[in-house]
Each structure stands twice: as structure tokens, then as C-alpha cells.
């Protein structure tokens, strides 16, 4: 069964050819690998490929098909693109654009200040919300000239990562 996997910006096609317990023959794009792959329930993988030892950890994200992959030095965004997610992707193609006008939180924190109200006209670069986390305050600015449509949070409220904060039109 072949599926597609996105690693940062690269999209690769993967298919398992043969398996005998932990020995796998797998095709990634045009390359065929014979690897000795062990993994555990916590998403830690040990792979031997022609003697080279690789340690990889997959940490699931909020969406069950998204992971952060950790190698020894780096981390990567991973997305599993199976039939279902392809369908969702195609369907949501148009809504993607709207999210550019949405301010979301890159990290958990607390809303310190919202200097705007629904209906206010803002210019690109105007600060629309200030978030504090771990003793550091960050100001988020409007990406466009527009009008505040929705404010999802209030001053003093605690927010999660990737939560929608303010939508501008």
C-alpha cells in the first residue's frame, strides 16, 4: 500500500515491498531500502540501514496525522497524506486562504492586551493583541489592512498553542 508523506516541504511516496518481522524492504520515491527497524509505543525508532544506526522519534501532534520527527540534531514536520487527508485537503483548499487573515497563537500563553474591538479598522502592522508566556510578551500585528471581524479571546484568558485569536477581513 503506497501513501504519501510530507517532510517539511518535501512530499515522498512510500511503499512497503516485503516484511519479515523487523526486517523491511521499503521503497521511498525511487529508492529501495532494506532496513532493520525497531520501534516502541512511545514513537521511538531505531533503524539500521547498511550498518548505519539512525534514531528517530515521532511525537504526535493534535491532529492524528501530524507528527514532529526528532533526529539527533533536528526536528521536522511530518504529515501522513492518505486517501482521507487528501480528500480533506482538496475540500478545504479555499478555506486555507482565509486563515491568512487569522491571528493564531504559536504557543500557549496568556492574553495581556487586546487594543482593538470588533468593527475597528486596522492597518497592516498594527498591533492587535499582546500575548505573554514565560515572562516574555509578544505583540501580534495585523497581516493586512482590514476590519476586525471576530475576537475569540478576552484579556486575561489563557490560550493553547494554535488557537484562533482574532480574525480580520
Amino acid at each position, binding site marked *: 500500500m503506497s501513501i504519501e508523506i510530507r517532510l517539511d516541504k518535501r512530499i515522498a511516496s512510500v511503499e512497503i515491498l516485503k516484511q*519479515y518481522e523487523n526486517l523491511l524492504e521499503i521503497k521511498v520515491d525511487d529508492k529501495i531500502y532494506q532496513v532493520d527497524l525497531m520501534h516502541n509505543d512511545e514513537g521511538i525508532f531505531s533503524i539500521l540501514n547498511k550498518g548505519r544506526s539512525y534514531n528517530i522519534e515521532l511525537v504526535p501532534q493534535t491532529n492524528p496525522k501530524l507528527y514532529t520527527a526528532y533526529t539527533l540534531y533536528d526536528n521536522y514536520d511530518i504529515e501522513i497524506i492518505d486517501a482521507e487527508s487528501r480528500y480533506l485537503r482538496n475540500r478545504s483548499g479555499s478555506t486555507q486562504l482565509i486563515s491568512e487573515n487569522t491571528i493564531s497563537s504559536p504557543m500557549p500563553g496568556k492574553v495581556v492586551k487586546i487594543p482593538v474591538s470588533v468593527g475597528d479598522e486596522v492597518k497592516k502592522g498594527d498591533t492587535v493583541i499582546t500575548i505573554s508566556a514565560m515572562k516574555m510578551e509578544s505583540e501580534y500585528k495585523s497581516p493586512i489592512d482590514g476590519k476586525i471581524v471576530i475576537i475569540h479571546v478576552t484579556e486575561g484568558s489563557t490560550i493553547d*498553542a494554535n488557537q484562533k485569536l482574532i480574525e480580520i477581513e
Partner: protein
Amino acid sequence: MRKINKILIANRGEIAIRIMRTCREMGISTVAVFSDADRTAMHVRYADEAYHIGPAASSESYLNADKIIEVAKKSNSDAIHPGYGFLSENAVFAMKCAESGIKFIGPSPEVINQMGNKIQARLTMIAAGVPVVPGTTESLTTEKDAIDTIRQVGLPVMVKAAAGGGGKGMRLITEEKDIVSMVRSARSEAKSSFGNDSVYVEKYITSPHHIEFQVLGDQHGNVLHLFERECSVQRRHQKMIEETPSPLVTPELRTEMGKCAVNAAKAVHYEGAGTIEFLVDNDLNFYFLEMNTRLQVEHPITERVTGIDLVKQQILVAEGHPITFKQEDLHQTGHAIECRIYAEDPYNNFMPNPGKIYNITQPLGLGVRTDGYVYEGYEIPIHYDSMISKLIVWAENRAEAIERMKRALYEYKITGVKTSIKFLERIMETEDFRSGNYDTNFIEKNKTFLLAETKCEESCEDMIIISAYVEYLDRLNIAQTSKEMYTAQNRWKKYTYQKNFERL
């Protein structure tokens, strides 16, 4: 002499645990305090006793002096160790402890005050013969005074809030035309931050080294220093890496600065552990910057090269013991480096990154010490500092210490949140750091190298893709069958090794 049998640690995070470790070695019981956000924190689990003191916000918990003293009384604590940050340099708290008959482990309220007021500290140092950065010796209460003084000192200058700290009410003025507006904004920020618009003026030292001396004083007038720490690797005015000995400091300079540090501490009859911070320019001129009247984050590198447990010394001094060793008994043996591990994203302006820790692998082995507090499954709260661990290595010499630090950083795995680990590894590979030729501009100067993309080659990428693929297949499989009751008994898939791929 009053034996301390129980200590309340008025702090959280790694420093709370670090203090409790020494207490345990000394046979002293420990009392933890915790806010709403910290019930699951490690210091609560490590302590013998633990009490809730209020909501998550520091102002209502770890800064709530009365509540903490109430817990100290209730638990029959003999003393309070304030750690660093929070109430550690709060003279009012120290005073309240004294009034309640609880020993505050640190200097007297008077000394905290004297060193907390930056202008008074400057005056004290001048009187003790310690060089200070050229500038005012009085607080400038009017705009005109400030502007006149700046003209007198000569640009570039730093304008700083007299009651200040943490960069608030601080302005660098490099051009004549900015003087008026900068002084105004500094005074206004000082007013709103500290309720006091007094400022003072210091000559701005370009690309200085930030070098500090550890001092230790007892109740009997003995004061000695435990050498320097080089703290010039900073981002956002916060230290990232410290080392000792400093690659800049010559034996002569060390002797001279050490003497000044001891004189500074003696001038105020200093009791306990403290740190004299100096700015050093490239011509090895040094200037008193400020004194931190508490244990410093980076104290472990001093412990490692001198062999002295500084927290133990703090407690012994608080009990009234005289220091048992002399200045000439102390030596710096080998070289120690500390890297601060922050939960932050170095690739996005060091933005803090609180969240849930997924897996941790601690670096171990020869010459490695870690002081941390997070554990697997722990959710780092958004309310406090982003430093989650300190990695300290020691080696016979600086070159070996750098290689050991690289090895330890390589072993250190923390997943679930973004950390500064990889960025620190890059620093270990930076030529300016390796040669020891760096000042406080180091990170800015080497930004391109430090932030360069170093992603892995294609076959490594392919291995990640294979892992994700197998994870996906497994997930499908799990969704179809029931999960086992005890996941920990099935962590690694059943394994029967086959010599080769022939049976595939």
C-alpha cells in the same frame, strides 16, 4: 550558632531541587511551596513536605511573602532559602523573616537594599576603591540634570533606572539628537515600572565582557572569592553559556579583580554567597556593574572547579559557622562550562515554548552534571521562567570541555517542546567561541552561522519517512485491534533477529 533542622525553599524549578539535594546531604528536612500551576512539579515530589501557597501568577504565590512566612511557621521551619529570582533580593521579605524568628539564608535586609539601589551600590563601591563605570554618582531627578550629565560623561551612554533591573527603564544613547527623547522615555518607563523616575547615567562600554566573581562571607567578617565566571554569551540580555576560568582573564587580572570583589563584599559586611558583576573591556579595564545578593543560576561551574558546595556553605554560614577554608586553599582545577537549556525556539527570535515534555534522555557519564526539573509527561507552565535545565561539564582543559559539552548536548534529547539544545551545539562549533575570543556581541556577530540550516542528508530524511510510514501502518493496526492493558510491557515490538534479508 543555631543548628538548622528544616528549611523552607521559597522557590520552584531546578533551583528548588538543587537546594533540597544539599539539604538532604546535610540531614536537613525540606519544605516545598507550590502554586496552582505547580502541583505536579518535581520540587513538590522531591521535598519532605509541600504546601500550597496560591494561584499560578507569581505575584500571588511565589512572591507572596506573608503566605510563605505563614507556611514556614506552620511547618516549624528554621530557615528560608529563597533561591534566585522571586523573593531572593527582596529586603522587605528578609526583614519579615527576621521578625518572625526565621533565618533568611542570605545577607541582611540592609545589604540587600544597599545593593538593590544601583546608585547607592555605585557609591559604596567607589568608597571601597572598586572601579565603577564612569558616570553619575547621584540619582538624577530632573530631566535637565540628566541631560547635563550625559553631555559631561560623553556619548555613548546608558541611562538606567536607579531602582531598576531587568532592562526596564534602560536606554542606550549614541546620538546627540536622541538625548532628550531617550531620557524622557527612560524616566517614564522607570516611573511606571518602579514608581520612581530617578535615573543615572553610565558611560557605555562597547562590546564588553560580562565577568563576575563569586564571593562568600560569614558572620565573623571573613570574606573570600571563588574566582570568576565568564558570562558574555547572552541573548536578549540573558545568559546562555557561562564558563570558568574566563578565556580573557590573566592570572594578574584575576588577582586584581578578586581583591576588588572581596573588598566590595567586605565594605558591606556581606554574609552568605553573592556575586559581583563586572564589565571588562578589550584592554582588560574592569568596572563594577552590580552585586547580586543571592545564589546565581550559574553557580555550578564554580562548584565544579573549586569542589565547594555553595549551597552547603550558605547554610553553614547561616548557622553561624565561620568559613573553614582560606583564600589560599582555593584553586580552579580544570575547566567548567554551563549551558542553559531553555524551552524556546532559537529559530523564531528565542520565543518561549511552553508545553508538554514527551521524552527525555539525560546526558550522563564522565564530567557531566545536569540540574533540571522537568520529567517525561510534565507540562511546563506558561507562568514562569523558560529555563528547564542546566548542563554543566568539566574537563581537564577548555578544549576538552568544549568537546565534552558537544557530546553531552548530542546525548541530551528533550522532545515535545522546542529547546535551545541545537543552538547551543552550534555555539560549541563557532570559531569565536572555540578560540575564546568573544564578548557580549557574540550571538549577534555569529548569527548567520548559528542559525544556518543544517538539515540531514537525503538517506536520513528517508529514514524519517520510513518511520512515519511504519507508525501509520501500526496505527491502522491498533485501531482495528484492542490495545493491551499495560502498554509499558509492550514498548518494543517483539523481536527475533535474523542474520540476513534472505528470508524476506
